[in-house]
């Protein structure tokens, strides 16, 4: 993992996204170091999710570059980005509701499978072995996020908190080098938030760099090493939590200008 001399896993160079006259992301540059927990915060409508969409290929940036591991991936299609090693979760959970938890995760694993269509059709031994391995790996991921007992339930029947965990397991199944979490603690109880922070640290221990969008300051301040603050699509601050917390521009963005 450290064979790459460049220790930035992801670099954004002047990324801008316009929708007609609206500038949703305005000339944002940032870099994420391999093996860190990096947070993106900002008021509602600041362009955080739009930035995620630009990185994961759902949107193509109007200008600027997205560089993953030194390779320019600007404008790649979402499935190519996934293959290159970025996975994500969604602000509003988007599981495959009518599949079991196990199948949700297996779909994620398929990116890394080798068998071809005809292997599956004729159930060749190699394909069987691979499918068995994929099932075992999927179970391991469900255990990792703590929902192995629900493996054969429909995703839609899971309680909210477990759905969020399943989404993380599904994202990890694509073997990402960089995991994007979009408000993973939204709607969580304080207890669940503590568990989530522990889970994020465990993910880091697997060698996955984590970039998260989060509103909950306790979570953000508690786990992230560096924070970038967006407001109206612009980057207004960057630095370690203590520094960002006291930055006057950040306070202004969140609380409004005092008189």
């Amino acid at each position: 993992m450290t064979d790459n001399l460049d220790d930035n896993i992801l670099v954004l160079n002047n990324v801008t996204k316009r929708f007609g006259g609206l500038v949703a992301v305005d000339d944002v540059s940032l870099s994420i170091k391999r093996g860190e927990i990096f947070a993106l915060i900002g008021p509602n409508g600041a362009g955080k999710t739009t930035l995620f969409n630009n990185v994961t290929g759902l949107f193509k940036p109007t200008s600027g570059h997205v560089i993953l591991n030194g390779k320019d991936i600007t404008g790649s299609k979402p499935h190519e980005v996934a293959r290159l090693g970025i996975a994500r979760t969604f602000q509003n959970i988007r599981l495959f509701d009518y599949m079991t938890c196990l199948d949700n995760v297996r779909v994620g694993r398929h990116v890394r499978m080798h068998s071809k269509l005809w292997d599956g059709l004729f159930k060749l031994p190699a394909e069987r072995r691979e499918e068995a391995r994929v099932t075992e790996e999927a179970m391991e991921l469900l255990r990792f996020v703590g929902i192995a007992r629900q493996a054969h339930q429909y995703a839609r029947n899971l309680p909210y908190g477990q759905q969020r965990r399943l989404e993380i397991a599904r994202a990890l199944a694509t073997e990402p080098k960089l995991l994007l979490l979009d408000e993973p603690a939204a709607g969580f109880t304080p207890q669940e938030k503590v568990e989530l922070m522990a889970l994020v640290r465990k993910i880091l221990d697997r060698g996955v760099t984590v970039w998260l969008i989060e509103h909950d300051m306790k979570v953000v301040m508690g786990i992230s090493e560096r924070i970038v603050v967006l407001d109206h699509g612009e980057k207004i601050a960057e630095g370690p939590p203590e520094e960002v917390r006291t930055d006057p521009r950040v306070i202004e963005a969140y609380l409004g200008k005092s008189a």
Partner: protein
Amino acid sequence: MTFTDYGFYVLCGTAIVLLATQAVLDPRTFFQVLDFGIADGAIYALVALGYTMVYGIIELINFAHGDIFTLSAVIGSAILGFFTVSENTFSLTEFVTLLLVFPVVMLMIGGINVTIERVAYRPLRNAPRLAPLITAIGMSFIVEGVMYLWHGSAIIHFPDLLPHGPGFQTYIGGVFFTFKDIFVIVAAVILVSLLAVFINASKLGKAMRATAQDRDAAQLMGIDINRTISATFFIGAVLAAAGGIIYGLYFNNLDYHLGFSVGLIAFTAAVFGGIGNIPGAALGGLLIGLVKAFSDNYVGSRWTHIIVFSILIAVLVFRPTGLLGMRVPEK
């Protein structure tokens, strides 16, 4: 249970009671009609599957699908024209020709359907829902037009290749069975089972289900949705092509306009079973085939279309999600 549920059960109940009466009064006719109905329904099921798969994945009603079905029979008949086959004896030649015609036509029609998707639907993927619906109707006219230019409005003969005549038919309990009936039913069952295994067990099948449920999430799991959607059109067309050749072999006569009515009836079958639901389409096809056969026999064939489309309306009113529900259920 709501009022509409009652309405639905009352309608179904009445139909079953009426049919049961007939079954008791004249079992011979009843089972004879049942035999026709199942064979007919098997063909509708093959066509309905294509409607339902495409709807399930991109929520488009592919109006060209019925014409794709007809085109496969026309192409099949043209290919058979190159061989000297006999309609009177079933020898090795006929067997080998049939074995050849099925895969060749299925692949060709699959390719044509993928092309139609690429040309007429993909550019409109993010357009309002109505736009691809209109191009679908356009594609339907184009495919019909091609067949019209090719053969005119004349009846097209499809060689009667399956073994038939004395020796390949029998009476069992007074009911007349032919080899053709058995062939149609067995072929349909094999194809539908293959599809079910494929959708549930294969990687591409899972990708198709994932794409149907959440396209963006599927992309971000590394699924190439364009490829997956093409595959759906391909498989749908392959089934319709098999259905088209089976239709040709079974009925031996068709015209360029056949796809219009078969398509609408198969679409009704797909809605009946729950559009987007694969087992539902198979079941719906079978049931519509039976309804057609019973109506032809007990009510009169001039009423059949009225009855079939009344069912479409009744299902849309009383049970819009169809018999098995609109979504693809899991094991």
